[in-house]
């Protein structure tokens, strides 16, 4: 009797625990049901079979693509190439599918194969070359975007109607939509995979790669096949995109990327790996699609839609993560302990003067003699600093290679101050943004809120200053403060709610976009203060003040990141937040500081961009985000944090700017420019790869 009781109790607690762990999935399902009930309630009787069938067909591409992304998330990865891959399959199929059954069957296989190949490409570099997922998929994204334009520069092509209706028609007329069959098949496929040893390995590698490896799970092979499987899902997404649109468009997949991430996150799969699955993703994909309907039914002003969508994302993630083991609960627990400690006087008391105050600029320039080093002083220096130098060399070496190519191919005045003035001025934006983004990456995060924080600072500054220097004295500090505030919100989301940085910053980016829209009414006005324009237009010894200030930026960055205790703690946190915490580092405060720094840099980027352009634009931050991430990673920074040097990022900034001058200044076909960018980024990080052991 008692044993049965005990077993039952055991079972019921593990049940609860299990339900707690699957809360992401439950939230995903509940929000889908809520969405359906709401829509059904508000527009009575208008959800017909046709609507269901339409919904399944239209959500199909997102469902498959997000299932692929889910697999990538599960093994602790991140895939920027998903959207572009969908388009690659799409343009290939729309270009080459014929009317015969044989051709259609063959092209379906080819479509799936293309996706799988892209996945294998990513997987090879990530698993076997030990490169970081963000940078590999960033590079492959650009390469694929270029290929897409080569295959189909102008939207068009077609697939036969009969072929399309096989996938998006009806299995039973007015009874069961065919797309749902394929979605269920994909789900079945996923469930079967999950039950295999490979499925277990996926979760194990995502949870703890080292533990998985120690338990005899081939981590590399699992990752490689994981990315390949993701690619297969992208292939299916591409096939579905093609049959649903019956045509090809090189850009249509890229527009889906943010939603692919959103569906995966909303579906309860954890960034960083080990938790989640495709079922939640499927529901989340449908929920996201239905948001469009809800916004329309409620007639929400279109300026609010970025804000509404960001808030939905945040709420869902909070709903799925905040609980007894969340960071917020931990804070509450510590607070309670402290309070009770205060009450019964059991807290340790600090002795004044016990800890000597140290200068924040904790500089120790003195060389420590080392008897073990041999050879010339230069050689000794190289030996001591080899680990850092190794990170810097690829970016700088490639920069010189690109410069030599510029001289050889374009020549002209490319050796003088004229060239370097342009180079340094343009590199300034990357150099500034790389400080913030670099610091965030060094702690193992990623700041996606840069584009619209930057634009917000720019449009507000231009509107307030309105072409005058006077207001700039308070307007510039104000927008920089606003940027820091955005950073603080990001930091709090990461620290307090324990949310992945990608989610928080993606959401704040949407909110800032919405705020900038509301502030400007969609049409930015005003102009930059003349003093800011002077930075770019004046000349001292042939260089603009902006170019000169690059030295200052680099100096400040090196001091902040490498010569202060704050900087040292960033590295400590990136190496292991847990170890840093146990060693007495206030991890949370430092993380907040890192995000505030990044917000500050974004806003400073906006201020500088406004000075550069003379006026400001709502979209002016967008083209800077991905190249800045590339700059940081090409410069030797490890995407999981803890390794890197600003001088490397600085070299990365020069490299990518020089590459820009090369492709723009020469007659390289436009589609090939993206491919060149991707190949250079991949080539640069290939030399940085870590060797096992």
């Amino acid at each position: 009797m008692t044993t049965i009781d005990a077993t039952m109790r055991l079972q019921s607690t593990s049940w609860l625990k299990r339900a707690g762990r699957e809360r992401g999935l439950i939230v995903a399902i509940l929000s889908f049901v809520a969405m359906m009930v709401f829509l059904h309630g508000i527009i009575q009787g208008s959800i017909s079979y046709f609507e269901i069938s339409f919904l399944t067909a239209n959500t199909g591409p997102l469902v498959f693509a997000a299932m692929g992304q889910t697999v990538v998330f599960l093994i602790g990865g991140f895939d920027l190439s998903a959207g572009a891959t969908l388009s690659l399959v799409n343009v290939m199929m729309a270009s080459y599918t014929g009317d015969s059954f044989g051709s259609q069957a063959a092209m379906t296989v080819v479509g799936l194969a293309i996706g799988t190949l892209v996945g294998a490409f990513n997987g090879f570099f990530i698993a076997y070359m030990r490169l970081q997922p963000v940078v590999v998929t960033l590079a492959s994204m650009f390469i694929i975007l270029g290929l897409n334009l080569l295959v189909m520069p102008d939207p068009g092509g077609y697939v036969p109607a009969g072929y399309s209706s096989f996938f998006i028609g009806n299995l039973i007329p007015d009874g069961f939509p065919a797309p749902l069959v394929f979605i269920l098949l994909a789900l079945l496929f996923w469930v079967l995979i999950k039950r295999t040893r490979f499925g277990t390995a996926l979760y194990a590698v995502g949870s703890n790669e080292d533990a998985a490896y120690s338990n005899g799970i081939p981590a590399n092979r699992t990752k490689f096949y994981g990315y390949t499987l993701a690619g297969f899902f992208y292939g299916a997404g591409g096939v579905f995109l093609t049959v649903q649109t019956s045509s090809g468009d090189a850009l249509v997949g890229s527009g889906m990327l943010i939603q692919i991430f959103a569906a995966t996150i909303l579906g309860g799969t954890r960034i960083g790996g080990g938790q989640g699955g495709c079922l939640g993703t499927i529901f989340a994909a449908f929920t996201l699609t239905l948001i469009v309907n809800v916004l329309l039914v409620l007639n929400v002003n279109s300026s609010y839609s970025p804000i509404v969508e960001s808030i939905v994302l945040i709420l869902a993630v909070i709903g799925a993560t905040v609980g007894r083991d969340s960071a917020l609960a931990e804070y509450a627990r510590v607070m309670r302990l402290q309070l009770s400690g205060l009450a019964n006087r059991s807290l340790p008391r600090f002795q004044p003067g016990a800890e000597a105050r140290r200068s924040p600029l904790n500089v120790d320039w003195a060389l420590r003699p080392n008897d073990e080093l041999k050879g010339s002083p230069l050689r000794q220096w190289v030996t001591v600093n080899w680990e850092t130098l190794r990170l810097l060399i690829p970016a700088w070496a490639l920069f010189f290679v690109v410069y030599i190519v510029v001289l050889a191919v374009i020549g002209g005045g490319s050796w003088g101050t004229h060239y370097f003035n342009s180079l340094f001025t343009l590199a300034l934006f990357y150099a500034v943004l790389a400080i913030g983004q670099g610091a965030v990456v060094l702690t193992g995060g990623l700041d996606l809120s840069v584009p619209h924080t930057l634009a917000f600072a720019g449009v507000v500054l231009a509107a307030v200053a309105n072409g005058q220097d006077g207001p700039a004295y308070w307007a510039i500090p104000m927008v920089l403060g606003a940027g820091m505030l955005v950073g603080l919100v990001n930091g709090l989301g990461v620290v307090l709610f324990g949310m992945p940085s990608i989610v928080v910053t993606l959401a704040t980016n949407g909110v800032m976009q919405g705020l900038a829209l509301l502030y400007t009414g969609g049409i930015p006005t005003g102009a930059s203060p003349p003093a800011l324009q002077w930075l770019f237009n004046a000349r001292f010894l042939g260089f603009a003040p902006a170019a000169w200030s690059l030295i200052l930026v680099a100096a400040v960055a090196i001091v902040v990141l490498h010569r202060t205790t704050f900087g040292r703690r960033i590295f400590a946190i990136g190496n292991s937040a847990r170890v840093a915490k146990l060693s007495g580092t206030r991890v949370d405060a430092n993380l907040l500081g890192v995000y505030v720094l990044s917000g500050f840099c974004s806003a400073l980027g906006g201020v500088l961009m406004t000075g550069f352009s003379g006026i400001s634009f709502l979209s002016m931050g967008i083209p800077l985000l991905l190249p800045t991430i590339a700059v940081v990673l090409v410069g030797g920074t490890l995407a999981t944090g803890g390794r890197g040097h600003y001088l490397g990022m600085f070299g990365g900034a020069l490299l990518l700017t020089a590459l820009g001058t090369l492709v723009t200044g020469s007659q390289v076909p436009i589609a090939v420019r993206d491919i060149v960018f991707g190949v250079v980024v991949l080539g640069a990080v290939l030399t940085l790869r870590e060797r096992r052991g």
Partner: protein
Amino acid sequence: MSARRFGWLKGLAFGTALSAAAAFGLGADHAEAKTKDGKYLIYYSMSYVGNAWQTEAKNAVTAMSKTAAYKDRVELRTQAAGANAQKQIQQMNAMIQAGADAILAFPISPTALNGVIKNACEKGVVVVVINGVTEPCAYVVKVDGVKLGAERTEWVIKQLGGKGNIVAITGVPGVSYNEEHHQGFKETVAKYPDIKVIGELVGMWDQSLARVKMKEFLATHKWEDIDGIVAQTGCYTLSLMQVEDGYYPKNPVIPCSGESSNGGRLQMLPPDSNVEGALGRAGLSSGSGLWAVAYLLKVAVDVLDGKKPASNPIFYNDAIVHVTKDNVKICESGTAAEFAAGCNTIAPGIVPPDYAIDFWSPNTPELGFSSALLGEPDY
């Protein structure tokens, strides 16, 4: 044990959700819900909310719906789909579902929307889009991009006397209008053996990116190397850069033909006109089709009234206002009537310099200055 049980639970949850969805579907009959007050319910599905042109276009079509001819006949609602074609498809379908009489759209893809457009047509919803989709049942209002590109290029080449170096600023690669415009450019250039294209810069229809790309280009070239510029968007910024770099006033500003930015037109005024930013530059400013978005509404109401347009697609090249330094003229108050009388530019400081100024055209004579800025008609 418990894991398996939970798997079963998951299945149950999935099944429940599905059957809930199906239950809502069954027994529901599709009722058309036209507006009760007898107005036409018209939706506008715009693309990206975050750029000034899209906002102006939204304002212009809103203003059109408030003019005397339409305010008692039309209810206009606007939704944005961002850069995601899938979202626009879902949105347009929701519009059909909401009982739209007509849908206006800025299509994110010219091909991906075909299915939903066909569906709309089958349900009797009138679809009118700008720039073009390949589904023939939609009414398309578009510019002949090849012709416009050729026209702009021809103008620059004429300025140069058929000889010199040209730089092209393109739009977004992979978008039909961009490819058409660039085709027109290349075909025209090919006719002149002494014209050399020294650079093709990807400007993405963005003044700020045009500046970045030109700065990259200038790292290896000089303004002196460039004799003419054909820009889908960027004439304003590129002319301003020549002032900043001191190329002007030592040399006249390089002839540039392209977009209808207000700042670009002000630059065409003579330097002694006492207008801020006037450079007396040679340029052709010929329209971004802003007014055509408002024109979509007119076409839609006409079709709903039973008046079909004479042709489909409706090419609007002939209605484009061409502005050069010979006819550039600042408006006093910016009313539609004043535009009709021949003014075509707004005084500096009132609108930003990148502001598209072609909201007025012979096809949309109702629209004045306040339409694109505030979404309000003159009267």
